[in-house]
């Protein structure tokens, strides 16, 4: 195994007398400083200029509504849990509480479903709807496990990150607020993140191509979003199997 010895006299020369007398070590340091003096600014002038969070960013949660992009098994989930089939624009949540089960801090959720109060001959008799969905985001770790557990892709992370407030009360979001946040996010950036079946797109970009403030820290460089892997088909290269 490779061992590389480091130390003064090993990979670092001690200071010579000339260097000591003429303060060459300080000169060298100053050279670096001066070099940086003529570089472009790299800082973002927040709040006049903001960089957009990446598409995978795990910000404030949202509850998605039915918009025709549900996964194929959405209806079978609805049947399984005896939920009233939602109309367009109604929440996708089926009150299965999978999100709560996956959450490291389950007490931050309050999820309740209620039986519909309709006469017996009504087609929705005996079915339930979501009545309460509260999340106390002051206890949330923004770990993303709830979104990965949700079978209907209802609960999602949005790119909203400013959650500061004067009261603790305003960190508790109810289902209307959560739906509004999701709708807003989907309208702005839904296409970037999800495909037609509400799954994560395969070609998500590492950060948005319109995010010029972010490029400042990278000296104006932007990725060209070429695919990561040269081979697009399985089996074109055998070396994976040999491992």
């Amino acid at each position, binding site marked *: 195994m490779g061992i590389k010895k480091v130390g003064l006299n090993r990979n670092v020369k001690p200071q010579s007398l000339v260097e000591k007398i003429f303060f060459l070590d300080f000169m060298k340091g100053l050279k670096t400083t001066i070099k940086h003096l003529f570089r472009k600014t790299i800082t973002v002038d927040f709040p006049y200029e903001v960089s957009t969070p990446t598409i995978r960013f795990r910000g404030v949660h949202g509850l998605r509504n039915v918009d025709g992009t549900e996964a194929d098994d959405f209806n079978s989930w609805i049947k399984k849990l005896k939920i009233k089939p939602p109309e367009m624009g109604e929440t996708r949540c089926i009150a299965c509480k999978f999100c709560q089960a996956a959450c490291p801090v389950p007490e931050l959720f309050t999820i309740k479903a209620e039986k519909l109060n309709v006469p017996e001959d009504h087609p929705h008799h005996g079915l339930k709807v979501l009545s309460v969905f509260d999340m106390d985001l002051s206890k949330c770790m923004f770990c993303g496990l709830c979104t990965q557990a949700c079978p209907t892709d209802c609960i999602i992370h949005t790119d909203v990150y400013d959650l500061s407030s004067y009261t603790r009360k305003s960190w508790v979001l109810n289902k209307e607020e959560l739906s509004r946040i999701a709708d807003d996010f989907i309208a702005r950036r839904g296409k970037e993140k999800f495909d037609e079946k509400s799954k994560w797109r395969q070609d998500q970009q590492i950060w948005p191509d319109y995010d010029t403030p972010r490029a400042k820290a*990278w000296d104006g460089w932007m990725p060209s979003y070429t695919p990561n892997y040269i081979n697009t088909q399985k089996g074109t290269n055998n070396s994976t199997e040999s491992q």
Partner: protein
Amino acid sequence: MSWISLEKATALKEKFNYIDVAESNGYVSVEVPKDKLISFLQFLKEDPDYAFKMFIDLTVIDHGQKENPRFQGVIILYSPEYKERIIVKSWATEETLPTLTNLWSGAKWAEREAWDMFGIKFEGHDNLVRMFMWEGYPYHPLRKDFPIRGIEDVELPSLNEVERGDQLEGLFNYSRMHTALPTLEDLEKTQKARMPKKKSQIVLNWGPLHPGTHGTIWFLFDLDGEYVQQCDIIIGQLHRGVEKIAENIGYQQFIPYTDRMDYIASINENHAYVVAAEKLLGIHDKVPPKAKWIRTMMAELSRINSHLLWLGTYALDLGALTMFLYTFREREKIMDILEGITGARFTINYFRIGGVFADLPAGALEAIEHFLKDFPERINDYENLLTRNRIWLKRNKDVCVLTEEDVYDYGLTGAVARASGVPYDVRKIDSYDMYDEVDFDIPVGEVGDSYDRYLVRMEEMRQSAKIIQQCIEKLRNDFTPDDPYFLEPEDPKKLKLSIDGRGLKLPQGEVYASTDNPRGELGFYIYNKKAAIKPHRVRIRSGAFYNLQVFTKAIIGRPIADAITLLSTIDPVVGETDR
């Protein structure tokens, strides 16, 4: 695997007929009666055929109130000659165990922690006081009969929001009662207990809220003029009982908590836990290679990220303010990459037991490569500013030398051990994930002073960059978008593995697996009595905790100004030392 073989351990039986040898997934442990423990350990340490010179960890398992004996001591040792580890266990009858401090000084804090958390007395320990809690705290929280919520016996209504004199109703409302809190007298008692005999006139308090301590560490220096005669450290201000949480939560659900231990290198914390859990499940070899390459790459990226923060704050503490700005510029780039790939900049939670939760987004490898292209030049800039600067040399050269002996004695790991000439690197010894397929060198120092620790970390960054480059090449050329990034178990009935981790059960057994965190060896010891969705005992072997312990020795006889240098070059993170 770096573990003693069953044959070699059984051979011990010839000499010591009273021992029991057990094996679980290749992890061999030896059980020794309490009264024979010290002589047995002495043999292991000194015998040239075994030479378990290096202390790794000591902890206690609580088997539950009904068991008798209830507590069991667990000692993990490492043999640098044979590159093997061993577990030695001993039942703590009557809640006592003999002290190991005469064999390894590193056991001092570990025993104090075991006393603090389990109430096990170590006979012969010279100052068995609490480690994290304050003197006068009545409980031992890691015992199984201590509830996870704690015992709420103090009224503290100020936590609650009050509107018109009334408590509000709702989720955001906390109970008026709170778990015990230390009073000022308690803290005074704690301070006295930590340093019972003053040697000179002044005791200087440094911290707990001082920017130079990089977190909430409280130092006590017994000073003779400028020179330190005696030193002790009070930690625990950030103690959140992470081990207790781990024992009360699902396996996957615990990963976000590891983010919050060493928050500077949270990917590496995730990594250690994930590897340990996979080894207990026996699936570490089956994890898709693509996931392993991604994990290796991310772990090294995070190491660079962590070392950059170290370099910036270290130089800042020694008076070189500009460094901080330069390193944060590169850090910002890494943060951007992490944000793009994982969705979070700081508390990542990207790794899963069985792989990672998502594939790389478009442009990820490209961005990392762009970062790497620029990076060597940046390191040269840093070195130009510091390495041969006369002030830097004066503040670091020959300051607080740690010898090879200290490394074994205190269980020092990571860059601190390597700077003292010990090529101890878990990445090479234990070769988890893809570390045996990548080519890199272990930087090793000669003197063991602060300057060597600085040079070792600088070289580590270069080596990490080299590893990442190899990972990029491998990922780009050998994999396709369709390759799995998460393990699909062959028999889903037997093993329920999912990305969100609901219902994941781990089998009965024990495992100690560690990874090389930027701050030293981070090990997870998981002990499971029976197959369950929650572990019975999780012990976190924190590299920063053991490395910080040597501070109290290395600072003796040095002027007080060296405390800053020493602390910076040890580079502890309080989230991990306190857990």
